[in-house]
């Protein structure tokens, strides 16, 4: 069991002595081997939630289990792969050295070589290149290969393609789905693009801001493997609209509330 279970999690930050509630009463579960998307307006705490799962922060209240264990244990046994919005490659290392970094730190000989992972993300021939020589999309592929180095049971991605152009982003999404299927990992994707969330996920969790709450869940019953053709179907559009509804209803309610109070 390496699903993710989040039970009644609240996260508060102290900002200059003031307490700020980033997330409140989050209940969410991601079944083993499935693909979940977290979507919401900026400031809804979706990145914070991802970092709670990765044990970068600890929740103020509630509990998180990764494969039935506390996130800290999962992290220390190298079960978590994390992809940031920026590729976050070490500029002094080659592509191969960047991909191999997790194995080097864990002190293990990986079952799958760095070269095989570089092939998997389609960067064959760039093993000895430096990050500065790669385009943004290629850098992000390196970051994904690195996240997969230790065959993590959980792959967490924080708007991994947010900085890429629309065309590159769609291509990367298709590739990411292929890589995810091959690796069999449980995946959580943070995004602010509705079509991306629907296209990628088995289940889309919609969050609202101030404080971050889960306002709804959309189950995506589209067949896999998925391709671009799927985006033209009415089922895809209906699911997109369902997510949109959850996102903007909440926003309108918030605005109405603000008007009433103002």
């Amino acid at each position, binding site marked *: 069991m390496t699903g993710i279970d989040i039970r009644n999690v609240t996260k508060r930050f102290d900002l200059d002595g003031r307490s700020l509630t980033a997330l409140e009463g989050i209940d969410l579960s991601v079944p083993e081997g499935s693909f979940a998307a977290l979507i919401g307006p900026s400031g809804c705490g979706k990145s914070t939630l991802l970092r709670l799962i990765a*044990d970068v922060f600890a929740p103020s209240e509630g509990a998180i289990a990764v494969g039935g264990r506390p996130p800290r244990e999962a992290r220390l046994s190298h079960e978590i792969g994390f992809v940031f919005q920026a590729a976050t490659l070490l500029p002094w290392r080659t592509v191969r050295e960047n991909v191999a970094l997790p194995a080097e*730190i864990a002190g293990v000989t990986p079952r799958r070589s760095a070269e095989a992972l570089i092939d998997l993300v389609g960067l064959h021939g760039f093993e000895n290149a430096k990050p*500065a020589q790669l385009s943004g999309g290629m850098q992000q592929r390196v970051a994904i290969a690195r996240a997969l180095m230790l065959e993590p049971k959980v792959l967490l991605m924080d708007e991994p393609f947010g900085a890429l152009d629309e065309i590159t982003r769609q291509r990367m999404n298709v590739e990411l789905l292929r890589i995810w299927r091959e690796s069999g990992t449980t995946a959580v994707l943070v995004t602010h693009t509705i079509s991306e969330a629907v296209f990628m996920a088995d289940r889309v969790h919609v969050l609202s801001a101030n404080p971050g709450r889960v306002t709804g869940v959309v189950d995506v019953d589209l067949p896999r493997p998925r391709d671009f053709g799927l985006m033209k179907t009415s089922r895809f559009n209906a699911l997109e609209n369902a997510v949109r509804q959850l996102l903007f209803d909440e926003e309108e309610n918030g605005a109405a509330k603000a008007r009433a109070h103002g």
Partner: protein
Amino acid sequence: MAEARRSWIAEAWPPALTLAALVAALEAAVAAGMTPVTIPAPSAVAAEFADSWGDLLYHLGPSVAATALGFLISASLAALLAGIGAAWRKASGPVMTFGILIDSTPLIAVAPILIVFVGGGMTLHVIVAATACFFPLLVGMSRGFRAVERNADELFHVLAASRWQRLVKLALPSALPYLFSGFKIAAPLAVLGTLIAEWMGAERGVGIMMIYAMFSFDVPQVWMTILAVCLMAIGGYGLFALIERAYLRRTGMEAAPT
């Protein structure tokens, strides 16, 4: 390759020609008796180099040693203090204040007082050299130790890296470009510190050679020692500039802003 060499020559000849023209003009001015007695002909300084390079090397040795040792001690202390400042945020303010205090100490006034405590030998030269170059080293290292990106820091956390792995695989490589720019500024200052200290008293050293030459009104020798000190300072800067360039080229990184 050939093109690189050609562009190097293209870049080098205008300043070289300018320098040669200035030297020739000075030579002519001295020959025409247009200069005060304190300005020697370049040829006289060159002759002085040819005559007494043995003496110069004899004095240069301890100066270089004091400079290098002072630099090393200063760099170690700066690394320690910058490390404390980076690890413990409350300390970073006092650390910088200490650096500014050291930097604003008038060395030329303090050195004679130091003689009372440590005498006028090598110890004094090393201490003054270390003091003179401390501040840029401290600033370079403080900035360097803070150069780790937040995401990279989180990455190493998620990878469950040990403190040692973080230091060796992340903090030091991130800091190096900043350290280089600190080293480049500090090296000539350490040379200046040694010179000031040697003026106060030394058995051997370029500084004391300079003082003797001044007292005996040996104008070409004074200028020879001045040029020697300049070469030491440029050498120190150049050494770190070369290491920096080689490192940045090898890693494909960019120089830190100074």
